[in-house]
C-alpha cells in the first residue's frame, strides 16, 4: 500500500471525504458523497500529481440500506488501485452524477448499474436497460430481489442473504472493524 | 361393375396411379407408332429441311442435361479441394471418397420446402433463379468443346457469350429486390454494381485478342491456336489474360470478389430468402458459371481443344469387317477368358479370397482395361475425343485455380473492388488494347 497516496488524497480532498481513507493490500479506498463525484473524479483525472487516467471498473453496490457507486482507478503515479466509493445514495431514488464526461466508456457500465440497481446517473445520454428487457420493472441485483428457488443454497450453511432479507449495513459495510484478518494456512 | 369397383378399392395409391398410367401410355405408344407409320416420311422430310433447328433443340437438351453433372462435379471438387487445403478430410461418406455427396446435395435441395416469404413479390421471386440459371446455361451453347462438338458456331460467339452471360445479374437483382429483405437487397445491388463494373474490363481485355484473331467466332479463335502451345494467345496477350482472369473471377462472384453472398456481412446476399430448388438453381448457376468462365479462359487464351503440341497422327487400322465371322467368336470369348486371366492371380496368390470375389475383381479389372483400351483407341482415332479430353483437362485446371483462390484469399471490400476495376483494370485493359493495335499496325506494315 502506498502511504504517500493516502497523504496526498487527504491533503487534496480533506473536506470532501465522507470517511477515513483505508488501505489494505494494494488498494486505497476513499469515500465521498455523491455530490462530490464530479469534482473528485475530475481532480483525480486531471491533476498532475494524481493522473488517474484509467477507469478500471465502475460498479453499483446495494448495502442493504443505501446504495453506492464504486469506481476503481489506475494511475502510473502509484502502485495502488484507488477505490472511490460514492456513498450514501438513497435506496428509494439513488442518483449519482455520470462519469461519462471523463470516460465515455463508463456509459455501458452505468447502464448496467442502472439496469441492476436502478441507480440513475445524471448526465448519461443513454441510460436504458442493457441486459434486461425494456419492459422489465425490477432491479435484480438489489438485496430485496430474492431468487425464487433454493438451487443456489450452499451446503455449508451459514447466513443466507435470501432469508436474512436486508443485511444489516452496520455490520456489512460501515463497520470500523480492523483490516487485519487472521491468517489462514500460513 | 361392383367387381371392378371392389378391385379398384383394394389398390394402393401407387397401384391406382400405375393402373391408370399403363393404359394411357399404351394408347400413346400405339398412337405414336401409328403416326410414324403413316406420316413417317413426311416428318423425316420436315426434320431434314429444318436441320438447324433440330440440331439446336438437341444441343439445348444435351446442354441442359450436361450442366447439372458439371455443377455436381464442380461442387464436389470445391468441397474436396478446400477441405484438403483446410487440413480436413472433406466429404467421404457418400460414394467412393464422398463423390456422390453433391448428388445427394441436389436431392436434398429438391426435397426441401420451397418457401416464399410474406411480402415478397412472388412472380419476380420465382423467376429470378430461372433467369440466372438460364443465362448461365445459354452461354454453354457457343462453347466449342471439341472439333465439331459445338452447339451453335455463331460468328459473333464472343459477343453472344458476354451479352447472355451478363444477363445473369438481372436474375440476381430480381432476387435481391423481390425477396423483401434488406440483406437480399444489399446483395442484389452489390452484384449489379460489381458485374456492371467488371463487364467493361472483361470485354476490353479480349479486344486485343480479337484484333489478333480477326474473328469473334469462338471456334475460329480456337482454330487459330492450333500447333505448339506457344501459339496460344496467352503468350501473345499475357496482360489481356491477367485482366480477363481477374474480371472473370469478379464476374463469376468468386472469392475474393464474392461480395454478393458475403456470409460474414450480408448473410447470403440475394439468396438469403431462398430455399429448396430455387436456391438450388442459384447454387447450380454459380458452379456452371465457374465452369463456363474457366472454359472461356481456355478457349480464348489456352488453345481450347488443341493439344499443347502437334499430336502425331496415329491411325490404328482396325477394320472389323475384314475379320469376318471370327469376330463373333472374339466378342463371345474375349470377355470370359480375360476375366479368368485377370482373376487368376488374385485367386492363386491370396488364399483368403473366395473364387467368386476373385472373379468379380477380374471382371472389374477386365472392364477397366478394356475401357482404357477403347478410350485410347478413340483418343488417337477421333479428333473430337482427343479435343474433348484436352478441353476438359484444361478447364478443370482453371476450376481448380478458382477453388484454390477461394481456399486462400479473404474477401475484398466493395470500395476496393470498385476502385480496382476502374482505376487499375480498365486502364490496363486500354493499354493492352493500344499496345496490341500498335503492334499489329507496325508488324502489319
Amino acid at each position: 500500500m502506498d502511504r504517500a497516496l493516502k497523504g496526498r488524497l487527504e491533503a487534496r480532498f480533506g473536506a470532501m471525504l465522507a470517511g477515513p481513507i483505508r488501505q489494505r493490500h494494494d488498494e486505497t479506498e476513499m469515500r465521498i458523497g455523491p455530490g462530490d463525484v464530479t469534482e473528485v473524479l475530475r481532480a483525480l483525472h486531471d491533476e498532475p500529481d494524481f493522473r488517474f487516467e484509467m477507469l478500471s471498473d465502475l460498479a453499483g453496490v446495494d448495502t442493504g440500506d443505501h446504495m453506492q457507486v464504486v469506481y476503481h482507478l489506475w494511475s502510473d503515479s502509484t502502485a495502488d488501485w484507488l477505490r472511490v466509493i460514492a456513498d450514501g445514495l438513497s435506496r428509494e431514488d439513488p442518483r449519482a452524477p455520470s462519469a461519462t464526461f471523463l470516460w465515455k466508456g463508463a456509459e455501458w457500465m452505468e447502464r448496467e448499474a442502472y439496469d441492476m440497481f436502478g441507480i440513475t446517473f445524471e448526465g448519461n445520454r443513454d441510460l436504458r436497460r442493457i441486459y434486461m428487457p425494456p419492459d422489465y420493472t425490477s432491479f435484480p441485483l438489489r438485496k430485496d430481489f430474492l431468487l425464487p428457488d433454493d438451487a443456489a443454497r450452499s451446503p455449508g450453511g451459514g447466513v443466507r442473504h435470501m432469508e436474512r432479507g436486508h443485511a444489516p449495513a452496520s455490520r456489512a459495510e460501515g463497520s470500523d472493524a480492523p483490516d487485519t484478518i487472521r491468517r489462514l494456512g500460513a | 361393375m361392383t367387381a371392378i369397383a371392389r378391385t379398384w378399392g383394394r389398390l394402393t395409391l401407387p397401384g391406382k396411379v400405375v393402373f391408370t398410367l399403363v393404359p394411357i401410355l399404351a394408347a400413346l405408344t400405339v398412337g405414336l407408332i401409328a403416326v410414324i407409320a403413316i406420316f413417317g416420311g413426311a416428318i423425316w422430310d420436315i426434320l431434314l429441311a429444318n436441320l438447324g433447328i433440330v440440331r439446336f433443340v438437341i444441343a439445348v437438351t444435351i446442354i441442359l442435361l450436361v450442366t447439372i453433372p458439371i455443377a455436381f462435379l464442380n461442387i464436389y471438387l470445391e468441397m474436396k479441394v478446400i477441405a484438403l487445403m483446410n487440413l480436413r478430410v472433406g466429404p467421404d461418406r457418400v460414394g467412393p471418397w464422398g463423390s456422390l455427396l453433391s448428388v445427394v446435395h441436389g436431392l436434398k435441395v429438391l426435397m426441401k420446402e420451397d418457401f416464399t416469404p410474406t411480402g415478397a413479390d412472388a412472380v419476380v421471386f420465382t423467376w429470378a433463379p430461372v433467369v440466372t440459371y438460364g443465362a448461365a446455361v445459354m452461354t454453354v451453347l457457343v462453347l466449342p468443346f471439341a472439333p465439331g462438338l459445338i452447339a451453335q458456331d455463331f460468328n459473333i460467339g464472343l459477343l453472344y457469350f458476354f451479352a447472355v452471360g451478363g444477363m445473369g445479374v438481372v436474375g440476381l437483382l430480381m432476387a435481391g429486390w423481390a425477396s423483401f429483405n434488406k440483406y437480399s437487397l444489399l446483395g442484389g445491388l452489390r452484384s449489379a454494381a460489381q458485374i456492371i463494373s467488371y463487364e467493361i474490363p472483361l470485354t476490353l481485355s479480349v479486344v486485343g485478342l480479337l484484333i489478333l484473331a480477326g474473328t469473334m467466332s469462338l471456334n475460329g479463335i480456337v482454330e487459330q491456336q492450333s500447333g505448339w502451345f506457344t501459339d496460344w494467345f496467352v503468350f501473345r496477350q499475357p496482360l489481356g489474360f491477367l485482366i480477363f482472369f481477374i474480371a472473370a473471377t469478379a464476374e463469376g462472384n468468386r472469392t475474393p470478389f464474392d461480395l454478393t453472398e458475403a456470409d460474414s456481412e450480408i448473410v447470403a446476399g440475394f439468396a438469403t430468402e431462398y430455399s429448396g430448388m430455387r436456391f438450388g438453381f442459384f447454387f447450380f448457376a454459380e458452379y456452371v458459371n465457374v465452369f463456363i468462365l474457366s472454359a472461356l479462359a481456355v478457349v480464348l487464351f489456352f488453345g481450347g481443344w488443341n493439344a499443347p503440341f502437334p499430336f502425331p497422327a496415329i491411325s490404328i487400322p482396325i477394320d472389323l469387317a475384314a475379320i469376318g465371322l471370327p469376330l463373333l467368336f472374339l466378342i463371345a470369348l474375349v470377355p470370359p477368358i480375360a476375366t479368368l486371366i485377370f482373376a487368376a492371380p488374385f485367386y492363386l496368390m491370396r488364399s483368403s479370397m473366395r473364387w467368386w470375389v476373385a472373379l468379380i475383381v477380374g471382371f472389374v479389372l477386365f472392364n477397366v482395361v478394356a475401357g482404357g483400351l477403347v478410350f485410347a483407341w478413340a483418343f488417337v482415332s477421333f479428333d473430337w475425343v482427343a479435343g474433348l479430353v484436352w478441353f476438359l483437362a484444361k478447364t478443370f485446371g482453371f476450376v481448380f485455380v478458382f477453388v484454390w483462390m477461394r481456399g486462400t484469399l479473404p474477401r475484398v471490400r466493395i470500395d476496393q473492388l470498385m476502385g480496382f476495376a476502374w482505376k487499375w483494370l480498365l486502364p490496363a485493359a486500354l493499354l493492352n488494347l493500344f499496345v496490341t493495335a500498335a503492334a499489329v499496325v507496325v508488324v502489319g506494315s
Partner: protein
Amino acid sequence: MTAPSRTGPQPSADDPRVMLDRDIGVFEPVPPYPPRTEREAEFYTLGDGQMLLNMGPQHPSTHGVLRVVLKLDGEKVVDLDPVLGYLHRGVEKLCENADYHQVISQVDPLEYISSLFCEWSPVIAFEKLLDVDVPRRAEYIRVLSGELNRIASHALFMGWFALDLGGLTPILWSFIERDEIVEMLAALTGQRMLFNYFRIGGVNGDLNHEFMSRLGDWMSRATKQIESNLTLLNQNEIFVRRARGLGVIDTAGALRMCMTGPNLRATGVPFDVRRAHPYSVYPELDFDVPTRTEGDSLARYLLRMEEIKQSIRIIDQCLHQMPDGPIMAKLPRLLRPRPGRAYAAIEGPRGQYSTYAISDGTDQPFRMRIHDPSFIHLQSVGVLMQNNLIADTMAIMASLDPVMGGVDK
C-alpha cells in the same frame, strides 16, 4: 401494397410492440415509441435515404448472440446500436447466492474461449479477502496454464478475424493450434473448455505426465508452427489492405473508452496489468509488453500475434523456474472471510478482467462485481466504425475480439 414511410422517428429496436404484422407482412412503423433516452431518440430518427438493418442475434458473424441495429446510408454504416442481453444469466446474482468455492464454476463460462482468466481474478480477490498466501508452485502453474490459454484464445482470434474478412482457411488452421492446447489443458484440468481449475489458495491438480508430454511436444514446434500460420495472413495483400487503417482510435480516445489489453496497447500505451500492477509471479518472469502506435485493426491483430510469442517465452521460463512444493494453501472447507472489500485485476487475452468482491463475514460473497473487457470493447465499436462500410463493421468488431458470454454475463 404501399411502402410505409421510412423517414422520421422510428420505433426503437427493442420495443416489444414492433412485431411482424401478419396481415400485411411488413414491419409497419407503429406510432412512435416515446424514446427513453436522448441517444435512443437520435438513433431511431432516420434521415433522408437512411434505413435500419437488424443484424443478429442470428447472424454468421456476430460472434455469439449479439444483436446490432445498424443505421445505414446505402452500404455505409452511419451509426449502430448494440442490443445485449441474449446471453445474460445474472452471474453476479448467482455468485452472491453461491459460496466462495462455487463461484469459480459460476464465472467459468463467462468468456468460454479463455475460461482460466475468468477464474483467475475472482480467485485473487477472494485470496485477498482471506489473506491467503498461495504456494509458489501453484502460482507458476497458474501462469503456465494461463499463458497457454492466452495462446489458444489469440489463435482463435486470428481465425475469426480472417473469417470475418472472408478467409475460409485460417480459422481451421488456428483451430488445429487451439485444439492441441485445449487437449493439453484437458489433460491438466479435466475439461476442454470450462476448466474449473483454479482454487482459492492454489490450483486443483498438479502437473501430470500427459500434460507435460503434450506440452513438450507442442513447445518443440510451437514457434515454427505459429510462424507458418501467420504467413498465410501477414503476407496476404488483400488481408493487409483490408485491415490497415480500419477502425482507428488514438490513445486519448482509447483511454476515454476505458479500453484495456491489446486494443489499448495497439494505440501505444504500454499498459499491461502483468507489468502495470503485477500479480502472481509475473515480476519474476522476463517478457516484453509489445505495443504498436497505429491503433487500427491490423495493429491489434499483429499485436496479438506478437503476444503469442511472448507467451511462449513465459511458458518456457515457467517450465525452467517451476519450484517444487505444495499446490494448495491450507484452508478450511468453509470459507468465511472477515468483512472487507477486495479488488483484483488480471491481464487476460482481451484486456483487464477484474473482480470487486465484498465480504460480510458469511460464506457467500455479499457483492461480487465482474468487470469484463469484452463488454467495454464492444461498446467502443460505435466509436471506431464512424462512416465505415458494413463489411468493415464486422471486421472492426472482430478485431476487438469480444466474446458474448463475457459481454452479457
